[in-house]
């Protein structure tokens, strides 16, 4: 290597200069800062998860936790489960989704495919306002309307209605974004084949945007599932099972956590953390389903 012949030498002087010291330093500082920001963002998350898991996992170990309600269980007794609250959470959010998803998706289709002029602008404006409404306000509104004015009883369904108000703008917004991502060329390709507009939307545009729409809906659902304000205002607490969303008290996981806060015994503590962990698992599994579904319905090229 020391005996450089004329052949080994580059024909022209090196065109590139080495990275300067100042740039190396900047690069180093930036890397450290970004790394630090990441750590700061992750620490509370990990901390939270660790706390919830270590304090709550024991509750989830018993099979009764998943299969029994708290009916007849004394506050200080390590027994019973949250089956009734899981069912309550699922029912309330599913009924909410059954209402919010079709309405939200149709509204988004209107905004993207048909909406022009004042009506569209008004709709967008309303959706913006709605997405800024705090959950307690949505709950109070439903309370005033459903229970106060229309005279219905408190019920799981009232909760679902409040959740609809919270879920709708998220569904509209995410669906709208996904529909706008569908290239105009695809619509034109369909029109050029003599396909009517509505059929183009149903058979070409929606399938193309489907994976994104499903993801948006699932995330909105996960979000709505943990909402606490509506269940505090709109439905009574019950220690036993209730499958009827239209009648009677109906416990959901947030409501169970809230009411067990009044129970200072170790059994109560365990129930709180156990229910919190169960809620996290539930929400997480919804997110996983969202990922799986979007993989499944994703656009394929290979």
């Amino acid at each position: 290597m020391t005996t450089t012949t004329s052949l080994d030498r580059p024909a022209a002087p090196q065109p590139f200069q080495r990275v300067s010291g100042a740039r190396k330093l900047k690069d180093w500082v930036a890397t450290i800062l970004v790394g630090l920001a990441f750590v700061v963002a992750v620490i509370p998350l990990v901390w939270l998860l660790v706390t919830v898991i270590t304090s709550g996992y024991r509750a989830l170990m018993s099979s009764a936790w998943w299969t029994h309600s708290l009916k007849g269980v004394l506050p200080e007794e390590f027994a019973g489960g949250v089956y009734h609250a899981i069912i309550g959470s699922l029912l309330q959010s599913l009924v909410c989704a059954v209402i919010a998803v079709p309405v939200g998706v149709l509204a988004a289709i209107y905004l993207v495919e048909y909406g022009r002029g004042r009506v569209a602008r008004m709709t967008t404006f309303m959706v913006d306002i709605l997405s800024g409404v705090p959950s307690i306000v949505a709950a109070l509104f439903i309370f005033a309307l459903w229970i106060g004015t229309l005279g219905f009883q408190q019920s799981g369904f009232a909760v679902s209605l409040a959740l609809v108000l919270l879920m709708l703008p998220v569904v509209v917004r995410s669906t709208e974004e996904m529909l706008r991502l569908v290239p105009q060329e695809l619509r034109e390709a369909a029109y050029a084949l003599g396909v009517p507009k509505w059929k183009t939307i149903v058979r070409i545009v929606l399938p193309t945007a489907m994976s994104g729409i499903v993801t948006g809906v699932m995330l909105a659902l996960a979000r709505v599932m943990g909402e606490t304000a509506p269940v505090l205002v709109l439905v009574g607490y019950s220690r036993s099972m209730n499958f009827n969303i239209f009648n009677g008290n109906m416990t959901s996981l947030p409501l169970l956590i809230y009411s067990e806060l009044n129970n200072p015994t170790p059994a109560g503590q365990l129930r709180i953390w156990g229910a919190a962990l169960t809620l996290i698992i539930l929400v997480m599994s919804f997110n996983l389903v969202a990922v799986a579904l979007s993989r499944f319905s994703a656009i394929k090229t290979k």
Partner: protein
Amino acid sequence: MAKRIDIKGLNLYYGRFHAVDNVTLSIPPRNVTAFIGPSGCGKSTVLRSLNRMHEVIPGATVDGKVLLDGEDIYDAGVDPVEVRRTIGMVFQRPNPFPTMSIRDNVVAGLKLAGVRSKSRLEEVCERSLRGANLWEEVKDRLDRPGGGLSGGQQQRLCIARAIAVQPDVLLMDEPCSALDPISTLAIEDLITELKKDYTIVIVTHNMQQAARVSDMTAFFNLSGVGRPGQLVEADDTEKIFSNPGKKETEDYISGRFG
């Protein structure tokens, strides 16, 4: 099949913007007509007005007549969906439907029009793919997604999709501009093949291509910056390229433009 098109006093607008001024032109059946001209002179706009795709753009309006075998496609009672079923279109960039297999892409027009019969769809699929010179390349992977093909194959897939609905007229907007020379030749051969059955209008920036494939050439130009585009002249391709009637055309064709 193959019908003639007569454009009469056509003016095209995007909102307030007057894009194309007063075009009158006859396009004979079973012929290839090429639109040439500098960028922005309104070739695509005129082409898109021939199957009422122009009005899909918000604010875009049309004034004038486009007669298809004597019938005005802009008549009040005419359904644009029917017009587009009769006059197919291939776009500059290949745009297969990303959620569909190759087979479904080809028969998309029929399927969406409600044709169910498996055997009929099979048959149309094969005939259209053969017609687009793509059959041999894809016959073993008809169930694979259309987006997985090469650019040239995708463009031929789009042509197959367009001819699967058996239109009378085929409009092509720079169909080869994203393709390599070999795919380009394949598509040019295909155009020559297709003109037996169809009336074809093609927009191209490639003079050789216009000279190679077209029977008639229409030269469009801008009368000035911000002014609408207009048809300068239209004649037999041979005449346009050897002995054009206007100096403007000669300058453009010989590259002495602007």
